[in-house]
């Protein structure tokens, strides 16, 4: 079946030796002209790719301070060099974050700095050739934009920013990635990553209502396009049908039901994911985010709540206010944002994470649980990279770690932590984030999961862990696929709201 195998666990997690060229290759499938042109990118590699790429780089250097400063500031200290899960899993030196940056920095120096123009050898500058472009395509698609490296860099250099810029340059000369661009096309055309049109979505939700009724005997609703609902739920479309995601969706619905909250999904914005971030395109990022604004305006909702999804929460928490005005604190004169912000209820944080929503209710004693329903589980928490290092929950820094854990402890009796070097802001990516969750990258995905699997295995040996909670659709999909390769049951991974769903007591309220 598969031509990939799990790398061996390291007995002690020492830094692996380098294996130059270990992951050389063509990278993931390239987007065809249809997928490219739908997003306004050229269909194939353009004639004057060299000049176009350099011009695009100059453009991005002028628009993003992160890129500008990060191209200059790195001192090659190597602090980040052993922090990337893809480096640990593949041992390819070009997967060291600093080396990944240098793939671009070498070009930056050649075309944009004095030293690189006149003394290229001295500072490791090189010409932009076709080979370099291919190398970029390959290695910038071996970065999940997880930002672990940026935690440890003394200047906070974030390789994710460099990867995003590189992908944007590549797409703009005709070398986009098939997986991401195809999906973005579906979002624009149909409303979600899966390409699930409105009637099919409605069917799915009705089916779900019946299933839940059978299970609980209660009429728990999954409303779609209800005008005047209080809450608009934006969730990754995987929640509508994939396992184990769907159990999380049922969990959200039960929480809404238990508190009599009126809520709705939107068929126009039936997707929390925003792959615009993965391909580094501000325009796409914005365009995808605007659908949610439109849905919120059209449905007249008071609150926007976001389901369990890592990068979607980063985009929602950190970028929505900027991109689409979902948030608070816009200028009086800012008509674009005020239009929406006037409508939203600012007694609540906008947007709100579903975990914040549930935790708030738990604190107010509005939910009842039978914790013993989760007694068959020994639970641990895998912090998802975008939630951990690119967002927050609650009022205090680090709420993104505390709140999901608090919920788990409120609904279950057995919770243990994994090695502290691999949780919270030091968490390892699942290996499938950043637009890499595609079958044409299976080998990379398996190897990239090594650091997490090592530590999970430790927790399994020591504490008998049999449930790893994650609040990210990509983590859930990635782990259910690769855990069997490491000899674990695929059902070991699940959401936080799946646990909530198991334990919640729904009386006849």
């Amino acid at each position, binding site marked *: 079946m598969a031509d990939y195998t799990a790398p061996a666990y390291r007995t002690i997690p020492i830094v692996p030796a380098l294996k130059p060229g270990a992951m050389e290759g063509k990278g993931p499938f390239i987007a065809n002209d249809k997928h490219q042109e739908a997003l306004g990118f050229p269909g194939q590699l353009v004639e004057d790719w060299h000049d176009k790429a350099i011009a695009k780089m100059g453009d991005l250097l002028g628009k993003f301070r992160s890129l500008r400063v990060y191209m200059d500031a790195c*001192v090659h200290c190597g602090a980040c060099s052993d922090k990337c899960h893809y480096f640990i899993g593949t041992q390819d030196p070009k997967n060291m974050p600093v080396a990944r940056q240098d793939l671009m920095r070498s070009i930056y120096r050649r075309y944009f700095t004095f*030293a690189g123009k006149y003394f290229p050898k001295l500072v490791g500058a090189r010409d932009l050739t076709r080979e370099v472009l291919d190398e970029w395509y390959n290695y910038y698609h071996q970065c999940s934009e997880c930002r672990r490296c940026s935690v440890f860099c003394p200047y906070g250099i974030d390789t994710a920013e460099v990867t995003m810029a590189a992908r944007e340059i590549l797409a703009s000369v005709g070398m986009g990635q098939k997986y991401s661009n195809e999906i973005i096309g579906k979002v624009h055309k149909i409303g979600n990553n899966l390409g699930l049109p409105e009637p099919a979505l409605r069917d799915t939700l009705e089916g779900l209502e019946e299933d839940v009724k059978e299970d609980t005997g209660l009429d728990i609703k999954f409303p779609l396009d209800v005008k005047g609902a209080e809450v608009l739920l934006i969730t990754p479309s995987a929640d509508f049908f994939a396992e184990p995601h769907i159990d999380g969706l049922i969990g959200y619905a039960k929480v809404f039901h238990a508190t009599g909250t009126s809520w709705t999904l939107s068929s126009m914005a039936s997707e929390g994911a925003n792959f615009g971030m993965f391909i580094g395109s501000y325009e796409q990022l914005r365009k995808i985010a605007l659908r949610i604004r439109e849905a919120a305006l059209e449905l007249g909702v008071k609150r926007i709540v976001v389901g369990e999804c890592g990068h979607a929460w980063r985009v929602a928490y950190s970028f929505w206010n900027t991109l689409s005005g979902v948030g608070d604190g816009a200028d009086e004169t800012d008509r674009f944002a005020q239009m929406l912000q006037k409508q939203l209820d600012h007694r609540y944080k906008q947007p709100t994470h579903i975990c914040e929503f549930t935790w708030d209710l738990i604190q107010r004693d509005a939910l009842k649980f039978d914790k013993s329903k989760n007694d068959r589980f020994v639970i641990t928490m895998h912090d998802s990279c975008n939630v951990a290092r690119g967002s927050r929950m609650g009022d205090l820094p680090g709420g993104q770690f505390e709140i999901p854990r608090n919920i788990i402890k409120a609904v279950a009796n057995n919770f243990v932590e994994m090695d502290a070097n691999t949780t919270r802001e030091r968490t390892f990516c699942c290996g499938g984030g950043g637009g890499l969750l595609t079958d044409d990258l299976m080998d990379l995905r398996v190897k990239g999961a090594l650091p997490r699997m090592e530590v999970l295995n430790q927790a399994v040996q020591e504490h008998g862990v049999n449930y790893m909670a994650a609040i990210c659709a990509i983590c859930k999909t990635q782990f259910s696929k690769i855990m069997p390769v490491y000899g674990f049951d695929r059902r070991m991974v699940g959401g936080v709201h799946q646990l909530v769903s198991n334990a919640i007591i729904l009386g006849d309220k």
Partner: protein
Amino acid sequence: MSMIFAILFYLATLLFVVGLLSRIKLYAQTPAPLKIPTTPAPTTKTGVAFRLTREVVFFESLFKANLWTWAAGWLFHTSLLLVTLRHLRYFTDPVWGWVAFIQPFGIYAGITMLLGLCGLWARRLFVERIRYISTPSDHLWLVLLIVIAVTGLLMQFVAHTDVVAVKTYFLGLLHLDIGSLPSDALLLLHLFLVFALLALFPLSKLLHAPGVFFSPTRNQTDDCREHRHLSAWAGKLESEK
């Protein structure tokens, strides 16, 4: 010789100041369109000031990343700071009180600086990963600093130079009055390399010093939901709608 070094001094200072300021201006003027602090991040401006202070004074992130690099790097930088401040005595008359006070520490700092630099270089030479990412210029910077430190220490402990004459010469330069510089080889080499360092600073990775203050992952406040953050070019997209 005095003349040549005077010209080099003015030229290097000019390149350093103009180069650095223009780079800082460029960083300051480049917008940061999105909120990207590496979280958990401070939620207030004061908190951000503390975070940056911890980065600059203690190299907090580096400490989390790698103790050896941190130890050598921190030793080098704090020593460098002391040494630099100590050198103010050649530019002030009378010597400021606190400069006189740190004088003895400054001298030992020369030795610890050298130790730190050697530690960093050893890492670069012997740790496979660091050797892989090193360019020739990375090695040369360390060599340059090591030679500066060694020549300085030699003058301090072995082959004394006429420091009074040196001081008179530099005080003169501050008033555009070019006196005569002792011409021992150690001193000339020491000065030449320092001038080289100053001139090349704004063209090199030494830009990490201003860079750390402009890094969005470190200098942004985590208040994304409470304040709308919009850069000029991104705002234009809205009016075009």
